[in-house]
């Protein structure tokens, strides 16, 4: 009886056992009075109240959005930056399943889980920003297809990519449920969903940048270029990997007891391997940024205040972390890799916010500054996402080894 409701044990289908199992697994585990809980619970509660206010009194009741700044940090940070950060999933699955780089296999599940949750929560936060979210089915069920819109493409790709990531992650769910037959079926879908997922990611990572092409007259010329889609795609590679490094370092500490033996042994080598890729891609990205700047003949703008801000982004948070990654790989310094990844993440935040918020309507007399409530809601979304992540990681074989009956690696 006790073994039959253990997670990971293969079992026959039995509805009562299944319900019992789910109820048991749904219960919170571990210490409740942790520092993270003490911080995140009030943030989530306040966020929930603010969301209610937003739906009753309108978006303007808690945001500083205006007629000239229709998109704030809920789009610029939650969606545009969040999706870049979630790019690790398509890059790591590319390395492992397409290039056959088996050394990264132990981080696939945690990376795909992170990617899936990021899309679910940060792209899901879009629902808060939509004025009429109950109409979101319109572009999906087909009564009004705005096929000329880049946003139509992005919306569909979000949806399909979430499905692809769910399939990629579902072997872990099947192992947790103890269903070998389901495990076999979804395991067979992995390669197809990886290929589909990489294709979708290529298009919507660049598509998020392409959204801003029509705002040409509103974005500062140092940031506007017809190459925004290419730059968004390339930067999503190192943005995603930096997030894998940064987040992986934290969850390896926090969930130490869950991490498999193999995962422990490989971790430093994995981080250095990813750092090498980051260094290479960041130099390509930096080179492209310089090329675009020179080609657009906007170099004289570097001498303005906006030019200084541009250089802070491109030198301080692209070139410097790129160089630090390079140094760290040469010296085998894992600590430095983590520093570089943090700086690279700041650089991505700056870049995405510059294009979508800061250098958008840069000439406006009253520039948009997010209200504390917009920031609070964003923090609440991140906290809920971490709760979901923690729930999954402490139950399913994500960092830990899969059960013995699961297929061999």
């Amino acid at each position, binding site marked *: 009886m006790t073994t039959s409701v253990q997670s990971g044990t293969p079992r026959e289908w039995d509805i009562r056992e299944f319900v019992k199992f789910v109820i048991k697994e749904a219960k919170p585990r571990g210490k409740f009075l942790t520092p993270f809980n003490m911080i995140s619970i009030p943030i989530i509660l306040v966020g929930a109240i603010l969301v209610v206010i937003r739906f009753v*009194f309108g*978006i303007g*009741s808690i945001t500083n959005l205006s*007629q000239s700044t229709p998109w704030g940090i809920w789009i610029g940070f939650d969606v545009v930056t969040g999706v870049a950060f979630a790019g690790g999933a398509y890059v790591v699955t*590319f390395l492992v399943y397409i290039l056959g780089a088996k050394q990264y296999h132990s981080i696939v599940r945690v990376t795909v889980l992170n990617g899936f949750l990021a899309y679910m929560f940060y792209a899901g936060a879009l629902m808060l920003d*939509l004025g009429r979210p109950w*109409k979101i089915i319109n572009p999906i069920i087909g009564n009004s297809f705005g096929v*000329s819109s880049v946003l139509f493409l992005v919306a569909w790709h979000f949806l399909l990519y979430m499905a692809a990531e769910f399939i*990629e992650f579902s072997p872990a769910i099947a192992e947790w449920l103890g269903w070998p037959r389901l495990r076999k079926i979804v395991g067979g879908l992995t390669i197809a969903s990886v290929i589909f997922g990489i*294709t979708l990611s290529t298009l919507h990572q660049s598509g998020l940048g392409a959204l801003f092409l029509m705002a040409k007259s509103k974005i500062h010329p140092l940031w506007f270029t017809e190459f925004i889609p290419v730059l968004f795609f390339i930067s999503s590679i190192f943005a995603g990997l930096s997030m894998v490094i940064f987040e992986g370092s934290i969850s390896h500490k926090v969930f130490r007891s869950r991490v498999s033996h193999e995962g422990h042994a490989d971790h430093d080598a994995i981080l250095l391997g990813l750092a090498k890729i980051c260094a290479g891609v960041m130099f390509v990205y930096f080179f492209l940024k310089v090329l675009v700047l020179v080609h657009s003949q906007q170099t004289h703008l570097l001498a303005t205040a906006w030019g200084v801000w541009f250089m802070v982004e491109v030198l301080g948070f692209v070139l410097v972390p790129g160089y630090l990654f390079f140094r760290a790989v040469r010296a085998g310094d894992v600590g430095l890799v983590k520093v570089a990844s943090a700086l690279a993440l700041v650089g991505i935040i700056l870049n995405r916010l510059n294009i979508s918020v800061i250098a958008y309507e840069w000439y406006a007399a009253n520039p948009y500054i997010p209200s504390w409530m917009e920031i609070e809601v964003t923090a609440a979304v991140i906290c809920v996402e971490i709760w979901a992540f923690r729930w999954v990681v402490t139950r399913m074989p994500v960092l830990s080894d899969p059960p013995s009956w699961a297929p061999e690696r």
Partner: protein
Amino acid sequence: MDRRNFLKNLSMAGTATAAATSLNIAAESPKPHEFVSVLVDAKRCIGCRECEAACATQNGLPVPDTKDKSVFEDIREPTPTQWTVVNRFETENGTVFVKKQCMHCNQAACSTACLTEAMKKTEEGPVIWREGKCMGCRYCMVSCPFTIPKFEYHSANPKIQKCIFCYERLAEGEVPACVQSCPVDALQFGQRREMVQEARNRVSDNPHSYVQHIYGEDEVGGTGWLYVSPVPFDEIGFRTDLGGEPIPELTQSFLYAVPVVFLLWPVFLNAIRAKEESSALPPRDQS
């Protein structure tokens, strides 16, 4: 009169001339028609704001007090409850009043941006908004080079608000409310081709009274509303840096690349994988 007949009548003259010059094209599309247009003459405008009041009455919006001249102290933008505004500009060549509203672009960025076709460039020319389709993403506002669409930030059921060129009045064969209300003929309604011609005549016949430019003839690929002015347009609140390229063309090459990537990427990825697999056997699935 239904909309089709309205169009037919409206485009009668244009059809006749077009058919004569365009050979067999007319045979293939029996009802070619022009976009509707309004020509705004900033030289004639006296700032009476009758158009503002007429617009509000027509569209069920709060009617402004046209006697109140203090509104001219600020340069105003259209708002969710006021789809058109008249602004006053003090220039070297004296005071100029000019009306602002949706330009109804020939290739409207807002309509291209809309993923639900809520914002729609109609065949007749007006850009309209359809409540049943809009999901409130505000991408139209991001895309519009004239920052015209306005959003009701303080409503639980918010709408996008902007001038819709009195679409329903046009369908009934009437001119837009603002045009009808104008006491000095500063607004003139007709087919776009006619209005461009009228504007050209006006500026070339009176070269000392008008700057030699018709705003909206070429801007962002041409707009439904056209302006002539006695002073340079940058002095009366117009952006003169928008260029002649239609805004939707900015995303065109990206959208053309999408199906190519979508079809070729999986093939390439699978080819690489197959090659890798034959050299060293990677995991067949996730385990």
